[in-house]
């Protein structure tokens, strides 16, 4: 009876996971399909992967997407980390006000954020790569702040004070003492920002102007004429790369993480 219940539970979870991955499987299959039709199987082929590398429009869009993703995530990480350190030192009231504003881009409807930014940009600059970059930084910063903040709260400040007492100056103590303690939060903020930027469509769509295309906006523009199968090939490649990276970072036993967990457990024990 207990065994049956357990099997049912696992079966349910498997169904949910199947639901989440069914369309992905479908897209991967299509990337190997030797037929332009989306419903019939025309045999296995690697053609689309070959053609992908000579399709300059798709490669341009990929470049824009990556430049936006890494650029906006990097800028957001710097501004957001400094911001979080500063916000934490604020008086309670200012702290609450700033954190409430920080939540706006996450809570507000994407379409409203996108349109508001667009209306603001057209007052003083042409829409283009820069306006999209600024928009991505804007919706990325909150993710950085929200993942750095908890690390700052766990921070052991007495080590920092000890370093200052022993003659370290402000910035040296920050780099040597504070930064290592909040590093994991900064990293997860960076990758969260990267994920959000690469997956964004709505805000890019409203702020991009003519001539700039990310993978998302390009796909959206192609819906009516039909998606090029090269796009399935590219998406499959991106997916596999991220899958491998995530697998390595999450499941290889890495010492640094174990040490971090160990110290966390010790702190909890106190």
């Amino acid at each position, binding site marked *: 009876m207990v065994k049956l219940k357990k099997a049912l539970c696992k079966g349910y*979870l498997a169904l949910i996971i199947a639901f989440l991955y069914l*369309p992905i499987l479908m897209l991967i299959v299509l990337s190997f399909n030797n037929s332009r039709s989306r419903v019939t199987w025309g045999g296995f082929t690697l053609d689309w992967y070959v053609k992908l590398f000579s399709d300059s429009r798709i490669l341009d869009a990929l470049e824009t997407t990556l430049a936006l993703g890494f650029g906006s995530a990097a800028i957001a990480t710097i501004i957001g980390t400094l911001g979080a350190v500063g916000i934490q030192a604020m008086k309670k009231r200012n702290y609450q006000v700033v954190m409430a504003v920080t939540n706006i881009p996450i809570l507000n409807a994407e379409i409203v954020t996108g349109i508001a930014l667009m209306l603001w940009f057209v007052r003083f600059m042409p829409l283009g790569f820069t306006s999209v970059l600024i928009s991505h930084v804007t919706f990325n910063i909150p993710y950085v702040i929200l993942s750095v903040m908890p690390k700052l709260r766990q921070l052991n400040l007495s080590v920092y004070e000890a370093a200052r007492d022993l003659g370290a100056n402000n910035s040296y103590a920050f780099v040597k003492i504070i930064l290592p303690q909040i590093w994991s939060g900064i990293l997860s903020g960076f990758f969260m920002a990267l994920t959000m930027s690469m997956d964004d469509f709505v805000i890019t769509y409203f702020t991009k102007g003519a001539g700039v295309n990310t993978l998302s906006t390009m796909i959206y523009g192609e819906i009516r004429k039909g998606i090029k199968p090269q796009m399935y090939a590219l998406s499959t490649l991106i997916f596999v790369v991220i899958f491998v990276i995530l697998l390595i970072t*999450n499941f290889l036993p890495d010492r640094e993480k174990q040490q971090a967990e160990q110290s966390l457990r010790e702190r909890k024990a106190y």
Partner: protein
Amino acid sequence: MKRKYLSAPYLIWVVGFILLPLVTIAVSALMDKNGSFTLENILSIIDPINRQALLLSLGIAFGCTVICVLLAYPAAMVLKSLHLDKKGFAIFILILPMWMNFILRILAWQMILSNNGVLNLLLGKLGIGPLHISNSWVALMIGTVYDFLPFMILPIFNAISDIDEDTIEAARDLGAGSKAVFWKVILPLSAPGMVSGVIMVFVPAMTSFVIADILGGGKLQLIGNIIEQEFTKSMNWHAGSGLSISLMIFVLVSLAFTMKNDLKDKGTTVW
């Protein structure tokens, strides 16, 4: 140098790119084509076509949120019961799909649900169907639930995982059966996670326009579609701004019912 000055660049950013754009859209909403003050744009949300779109959006968002909670809660419980030594695995499984482009994934659903799609092919082999659900609200609902389900599972899973095992054991020791443990201990303690999940699902589900564009076949108009068309097709920016402001007010009001805890569960632990 004082520590709080480090936040200066961020505060400048907040004013320049969060607050001022919102002021701009509000100003644009309150103006007519000639630049004089009007409330017409904001009130146009109650025009029959817009009102119908708003109601459909609300219905889809409400249904999607309820279905997501019902699907997500058991899934989060099972994930927790697997006793993975690392939280990472569950989050990994849920975040990974986001790396396949979201529009492509919705297009894949269109292919799966279409009249001669994979679903009907499979049902046909079982002797059922064919079902005609493409371009209907059923397809739209499936796509919406699909897109936002991970954002419901994650916070609920985090909340359930954070419950101290000792609390559950204490309840058992004091004679609670597994039903009582669930209703009196686990459910109340995981409620904040559910609230985060509801916020993260309801608002985007109500305001999205891409899913309806693809799975509704142009027949189903959500309020997001109407706003998008004001900007891209009818080029009536003031009307679009007005509807956006009404939508924002609507969202804020519905959030006011559920808010009060900040969003700390947007899945950052996977990295």
